[in-house]
Structures are given as C-alpha cells and as structure tokens.
C-alpha cells in the first residue's frame, strides 16, 4: 500500500522538479540583475539607482511617448484583430490558414525590412509622427494578439453563441459588443497585455526609426550608467508583472 502512494508522490515530485528547473532558468538572471541594480558605489546595496530614475531630465518625455504608443497600439490592435479573428472562427476553415500565416509574418520579416519598407512607402510628412511607430507595433504584436484572441475564442463555441444571438434578434454590432467581446474578456486582456509588453520591450524598431521610447532610453542610459539602466529594466518588469497578475485575477474572477 505504502509503495503505491509513494509511487504517486514520486511522480508528482518529478513534475514539480521539472517546473522548478525551468523557473530557475529565469529566476537566476533576474535575481542577479536585481542584485546588480541595488549595488552602490561604496560596495553596499541600496535603492540609489531607483531613486535616480525620476531625476533623469528626459524621463517625462520618454514616459509620455511610450504611453501614447501603448494606447495607439492597444486600441488599434483590438479594433483590427477582434473582428478579424471572430470572422475566422465564424467563416470557413480556409480563411484560418491564411490569417494565421499573415499574423506570423512579423516573426519572420526582419524589423529592418519593415522599417525600410515603411520609410520608402510612406509620405515624408508622416515620418515625422511617432504614431507611425504605433502602427508598426500593431503589426509586430499581431502574432501575439492573434494567438491570444484565437485561444479565447476556442473556449467559446463562438459560432453557436453568435447564431443564438442573431436568432434572438441581435444585429451584428450588438453581437460583437454585447456577446463576443464580454465573453472574450480573457483573450482581450491577454492581447492587451502582450501588446503592452511589446511596446515596453521593443528596441530594434524604435531605435531604427530614431524615437526615444522607454527601451531605447534604457539602452542609452545604460551606456553611461549600467546600474540605472538595469534598475529601469527591473522596474518595467515589475510593472509588467503587476499587469499580468491583475489580468489573471480579472480572468479568474470571471470563471469563478
């Protein structure tokens, strides 16, 4: 008897061990980075680096630009992707492969190609606007937004629910706003979160298009003050985590 229970326990132990190893893979660098950001000149540890964040001269400009890009990317992503992915689930399967292929492109197309392409095609007057970068972020976020919304709709049997709503007299707009969106909450949250994470982390595109966003700023600052740069990264990470937890919480409440 004891042998059986032990066997079951061993299997659980194995599972947890694997998880712990994977977690370690991330935790080690994180801990080390945090430790690094807390180092002070005199060899002790403290919050100096974090305090100096707020004193940086262009802090406000960078934050405002990043926020603006975030809002543009999130709103535009949802407006484009929610109806598109819903359509994929409602329509014939043949659309699916195509839309999935398109949505994967940003992982495949090197950012430099996108940037050069945009710069070549766009009217010069548009190039002065940071909003263009927001549009690019919508594209870059597509692999994530597509997957998040797609997974959300998978759980939903959206075809039946949409049919039911239409049968009850709802217009297409009512269907999208009153039926699909509220039940896709977790997918929408996921898409929002991933888009925000992208904007907070994207370096290549922003630096190629010469905008001073949060990530490029971190890199610039890092060249003069490594501790400050790492402190900024840790802070942005903490911010992203808070978002993740909030989303996961909202998601769980819905299901409870």
């Amino acid at each position, binding site marked *: 008897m004891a042998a059986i229970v032990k066997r079951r326990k061993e299997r659980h132990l194995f599972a947890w061990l694997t998880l712990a190893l994977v977690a370690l893979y991330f935790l080690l660098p994180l801990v080390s980075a945090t430790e690094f950001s807390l180092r002070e000149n005199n060899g002790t540890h403290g919050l100096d680096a974090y305090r100096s964040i707020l004193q940086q001269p262009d802090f406000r400009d960078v934050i405002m630009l990043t926020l603006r890009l975030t809002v543009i990317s999130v709103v535009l992503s949802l407006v484009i992707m929610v109806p598109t992915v819903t359509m994929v689930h409602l329509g014939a399967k043949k659309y699916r492969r195509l839309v999935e292929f398109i949505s994967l492109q940003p992982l495949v197309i090197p950012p430099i190609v996108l940037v050069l392409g945009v710069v070549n095609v766009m009217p010069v007057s548009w190039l002065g606007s940071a909003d263009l970068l927001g549009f690019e972020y919508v594209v870059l976020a597509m692999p994530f937004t597509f997957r998040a919304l797609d997974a959300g709709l998978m759980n939903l049997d959206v075809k039946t629910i949409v049919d039911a709503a239409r*049968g009850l007299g709802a217009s297409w707009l009512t269907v999208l706003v009153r039926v699909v969106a509220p039940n896709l909450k977790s997918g929408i949250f996921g898409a929002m979160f991933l888009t925000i994470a992208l904007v907070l982390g994207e370096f290549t595109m922003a630096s190629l298009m010469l905008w001073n966003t949060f990530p490029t700023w971190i890199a610039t600052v890092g060249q003069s003050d490594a501790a400050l740069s790492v402190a900024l990264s840790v802070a942005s990470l903490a911010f992203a985590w808070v978002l993740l937890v909030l989303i996961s919480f909202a998601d769980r409440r819905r299901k409870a």
Partner: protein
Amino acid sequence: MERTSTGVELRNLRRTFGPVVALDNLNLTLQPGELIALLGPSGCGKTTALRLLAGLDQPDSGEIVVGGKDITAVPASKRNMGMVFQSYSLFPNLTAAENVAFGLRVRRVSKSERLKRAAELLELVGLGEQRDRYPHAMSGGQAQRVALARAIAVQPDVLLLDEPLSALDAKVRTQLRDEIRRLQIEVGITTLFVTHDQEEAMAIADRVGVMRAGNLEQLDLPAVLYARPATPFVASFVGTNNVLPTTVEPNGTVYVLGRALAVAAGSDELAVGQAANALLRPESVSLGHRDGGTDGVAGVVSSTSFFGSVTRLTVKLDAGNFILVDMPSVIARDFSAGAEVLARAMTNEVVIQHQEAVALVDE
C-alpha cells in the same frame, strides 16, 4: 401564455455547398401548433433545413412562408424565431435570467418587464431557483432548459430545436424530451425538431419526416412510419430490423423464418426469383422451445437483454446468422442463454429490399 399559433411552409427549398447538394427541393408544411421532427443520419440535410428556416443560412432557391408571409429575404435578426442548439449556446457572461431576457433586451422591453418575464419562464422550465446562476455552474440539462426558456421568451412564431438533447445523459435526455413536448403543447407553439435519434423523433413529434441525402423520403404519423414505411430507407432507419436473406417466390410472396409472407408497401420492386433481404421487426418474431413443436427455424438463444417490461433475445440460427426477438419479460424468462428454440415470423407482410442495398449499419 395562450397565443395564436403560426403555420410554416417551406417551398422547393434548395441549398448546395459547392458540389454537395445539402437540400434538394424540400417541401414541408407545418400546421399551426404542430411539432414536426425531421429525422435522418448526419449529412441528410435536416439541420440545413432548420437553419434556412431560422435565417442563419440562405437557400439557393425556394421560398419560406411563415404565417402567410414570405420571409425568404428577411435576415435572421428580423425573423421571429426561437432556437435551441445541440451544444450549449447560453451566453457565458450572463446569468440564467439575463440569458432568458436577452431577446427581450434586444427588443427594447423595459428592464422590470423583462426580468419579470424571465422569472416566469424559468419557473415554467422548473428552474425558478437558479435564476442568478451562471451557465458554467449548471448541468447540461439545466443549461438546455434555460436555452429553451430563452427561445420561448421572445414569443416566437416558430420554435426550432436542433438536436437539443443529443449532448445529454440518457436519463436527462428522456426527461427533458417529455418536458419539451409538454411545454410545446402548453404554449401551443409551432415547432420543428431535428434529430438523428429515431426513438426521440417518434416519441416527441406529431409527425415525423425522414430525410436522406437532401430529400424528404416520408412525412407521416410515427405509427404509420413504423407500420407502413414508404421506402426501404425509411423501413430500415425507423425502428430495429432483422435483415433476413430470402427470394421472391412466383406468387409474389417471400419465405421468412419458415412462413410465406406477403410483400409490404414500401418494398423495393423485385422480380420473381430475385434474392432479397426481408426486414422483420424483433417484436414480429415469436419463439417456441424446440421440443415443443416443429414449426419455425431452429436456433439457440445466445444472450438476453432486459429492457424492463420487454426483453430482447439474441438468437443464433442454425444457419449461422443472428436475429433479435422482443417479447414481454414475463414470457422471456422461459428462454435463457443456451436454450434451443424455433423462431417464427408473427406477421403477415414484410418489407423487402435489394440485397445490394447499402446496409445502414454505420455511415
């Protein structure tokens, strides 16, 4: 709750999906207040017919007339239909009451009025207490009850039920089936019920339409379908049949289990001397002990299945094939597995089919 019922007419409906003809010139009339079940294997077009009537799909040609008005070109949201689906179609973010009230909300009924009506309807389907529950906290049977209440809430002209019971457990399935019928009669609503389960169709409907490959093969009272099937397909799809090989005799009869039987209406047209399959109902076979007589075909009982008042025996004939025999459980006690028996046809006519006719075993 009382209201005037609406008649429905489907005229020459045709719907193709690429090369597949889902519906091939369907004509069907539902009398006001009538419940018609469309019965058939998957892919026979029954669900297509229902979706066309709901407006969730458009026909290639043909007309849909409800209450005397041609609504063929009216979109789903403007037709006044109530629909229940096979899979659970409740809105997960709404409570039972809010689900039921959804159609009324779309119709801009005031909040107090629609909550009152939702409460009434939930009471009607026996879920008055569950009003504030969310769909994920309900059993399958409860969810389908709420879906039913939601469909009726808008006082639809026609109630459309698309295999509403197939995802449910056996026990709940029969209970809800009887309840749907009770409710349908009480509300007096014209209803189209689509199913692949012949027992379900026969049990619930005023008339049953048997469909096959986009065509309506027969539309009639359940008892008529069972006793006088119009086509071999109907004969083999409705009820259980023993398929017994035989040959057409010169006088037009066939020998089945040792007796000459007349060929029934609904049979394939076969020439004298041609090989045929006779379709014999399990309750149309009688058994006697082998030492008790010489009449009938010899066999051995291989197993018995108890169905309550009726017991079904599987008999292995000496020829090697198996037949099913239904008899009252009281009598079946005399025949346990291993008993040597004589099987005899207990009917005067029998449906026959071409032997090459595709067996309906399993599409």
